[in-house]
């Protein structure tokens, strides 16, 4: 016989269990990234909603780094910029209270790249998710000014005044920076808006934005007889990082490696070749000494007629 007391006990236990479960959820909530997030940049913003009374330290572990965040401020949201590697990344976020793990969440993030064969095609479960939609921005608006404060045609005297700078500053930290990016004129490219998805998408393909400034190249390359595939398809960003990079002209890899990322067969051929100019390493010679990376009137994107190149 189940007495009323037992029923009450069970109800209370259930209630405690459920509230406990809710409570565990209440320690920390990962607002972004979403599970199975796919992106091409190597940096990522992690946004957490934390119950500061119940959590005093947050640890974010990525394959590259381990970040500890002290809960000093009274805000109940924390933003952190993390570094990722190409391919799969598991972002492990743990909340501690007095050195006791109280909550843990994992996010799988994939960074794809056109330049590496192995990272070009991400596993099916990953998909692009975008941050700047109305719902997300409402959350951020508590602390951040989410409006665009660029003055059309005038760059910031002090770039830290840009509203974008606060969260995205890491994209311009490399040695060589693209002028619109380094000056935080983000909306010169990020202008497309897709309702419910994002406000700041780029044009697809991106070259329409590029040629707005690099007009003379449009004419020069457009009229050429042979055009390199990324140029022809309008994906300048395949080789160039439109924000900043450690290499000149913001190319994503060292000059020869960027070519060999796609032209793998040439790498092997070049290594076997006795011609030192084509040894395929930057010590030997540069691909771009003979080939132009964009467009040419000579076959194989040679800079001059074949006889003249070979001498």
């Amino acid at each position, binding site marked *: 016989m189940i007495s009323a007391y037992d029923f009450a006990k069970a109800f209370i236990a259930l209630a405690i269990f459920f509230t406990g479960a809710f409570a565990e959820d209440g320690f920390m909530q990962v607002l972004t990234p979403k599970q199975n997030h796919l992106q091409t940049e190597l940096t990522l913003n992690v946004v957490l909603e934390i119950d500061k009374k119940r959590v005093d330290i947050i640890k974010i572990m990525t394959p590259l780094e381990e970040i500890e965040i002290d809960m000093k401020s009274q805000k109940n949201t924390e933003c952190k910029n993390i570094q990722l590697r190409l391919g799969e990344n598991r972002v492990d976020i743990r909340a501690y209270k007095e050195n006791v793990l109280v909550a843990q969440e994992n996010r799988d993030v994939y960074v794809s790249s056109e330049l590496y064969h192995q990272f070009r095609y991400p596993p099916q479960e990953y998909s692009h998710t975008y941050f700047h939609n109305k719902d997300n921005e409402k959350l951020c608006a508590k602390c951040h000014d989410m409006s665009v404060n660029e003055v059309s*045609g*005038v*760059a910031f*005297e002090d770039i830290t005044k840009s509203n974008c700078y606060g969260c995205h500053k890491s994209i311009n930290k490399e040695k060589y*920076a693209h*002028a*619109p990016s*380094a000056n935080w004129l983000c909306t*010169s490219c990020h202008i497309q808006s897709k309702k419910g998805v994002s406000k700041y998408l780029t044009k697809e393909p991106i070259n329409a934005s590029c040629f*707005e400034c690099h007009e003379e190249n449009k004419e020069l390359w457009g009229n050429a007889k042979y055009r390199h595939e990324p140029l022809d398809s309008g994906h300048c960003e395949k080789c160039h990082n439109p924000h900043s990079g450690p290499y000149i002209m913001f190319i994503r890899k060292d000059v020869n490696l960027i070519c060999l990322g796609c032209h793998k067969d040439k790498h092997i051929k070049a290594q076997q070749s006795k011609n030192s100019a084509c040894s395929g390493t930057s010590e030997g010679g540069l691909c771009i000494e003979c080939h132009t990376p964009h467009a040419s009137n000579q076959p194989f994107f040679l800079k001059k007629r074949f006889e003249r190149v070979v001498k």
Partner: protein
Amino acid sequence: MKQNMTKIIITVLVLALSVFLFQSYGVADKLSRFVTIMGNITNSLKNAKHAYEEVNFTISDDELKDVNITKLAQEFKSSIDKKKEALVLAIKAPPEIQVDEIREEEIPTHTKTQTIKAKIVKMEDLPAKFKPLKQYLHEPFKMGACQICHTSKNNKPGELVKKNISEICYECHKTRYTKKFDHKPAKDGRCMDCHDPHQSNTKKLLKAESVNTLCLKCHDRKSTFSAKAEKLFVNMDLAVKHKPIVEKSCLECHDAHTADHKSLLSLDAKMDLCLDCHDTIKEKITHAKFKHGGVNTSEKRCLECHDPHATKHVKLLKKDPVATCLKCHDKEVKSDEDGGMLMNMKKHLDENPNWHKPIKDVKKEGGCSACHDPHGSDNFSILRKSFTQNFYADLANKEFFCFKCHTEKKITKQFITTSQEHNITAFRDGEVNLHYLHVNDRKGRACRACHDEHASKYKHLIRDYTDFNGIKFPLRFKESAEGGSCAPACHKEFAYDRVNPKGIGK
């Protein structure tokens, strides 16, 4: 029969021969012309009015008696009086005369027959105040024909024939001063304000030593015009005067009596009159590729900037050279060249304390016109020499305007090694000339990519913003004791130091 046949043959032959001759010498033509001429003569004789038979004119003695010669004389006199009356009326209200009517001064001739009737005053009888005689004498005065103007009815000396002096003058000087605009004294008939009726040491019997002194008797700042009529003054105390005022006379431009254009000018004062003498400027204004709106489309044309008489400033400018330009360029002005808006230069100069030397040192360098030709030029922005509008420039073309004053070595010398060369440029990292690096290496950047040619907040006229592809990028220039740093759109923050090089360009 045979005889008859021969006769017929002979007559036929003779006829044929005569016809041949007749035709070959054109006898028929000549005959017909003779006939028409004779006909004409007879016709004209017939129709002529002076033909003898029509002359039938005689005057009888009775008829001759009826012709009253005295009556004729009276009629003649009254007609003259009427004309005179009309003249008096004409003086009071000058009739409208076509503007383009050419005035030819009628110089009156005083024939002896006219003067014989008058009572001649001999030279020695002249009142003492006329002696000694001056260089130029009024013709009646010279002849002693005082009676032409003065009456001797009363014993009052100097009593005139008519009350109104101008009437007496116009009696002989028949020209009416009736173009579109009249000189006030001439209009009012105050001839005596300027001319002496008897004698003078100046041509045209003027009451002063020269034309200009005469004009300035009234048109001087010290004179008695009302304050409203300020433009009637010519302040001769000012240092810079228009050449004709000093060397020639006011009459170079103005007519003393009447003219078709305002201010008694023969041509339009705004521009046409000026360009009549200033040929080279006329050439510039009319043929320059780029024209200055200040001259070509403004309201006052030349007079927008220049004063035609005298000023304190060079080139007869109304204000000092920079202030003259800023009179219009104190707001955004529409450019005549491309229809774009020109910057508010006054605001720019007010906001930026470091000025380009020609603007700063106006007296020595000449202000805006050191670089711009205010009358028009074949170079954009009416510059005196070619310059680039672009961010990038091919400086192999060393005809650049900046090098007129600044040394070319600034950009051509890659390394500045000796201390003697240090004055070439201070923009160097150790020995590396950073001007060379920016301008001569690969893509040459134009001077104005970094420097503002007018004024700047920063030293060395460094711009605060540079325009690249329509976007203004800040240069973020900072100066240190022996160098400085820039963080423009082109590169991240790079510092340079003249003493302890930071290694730029290596």
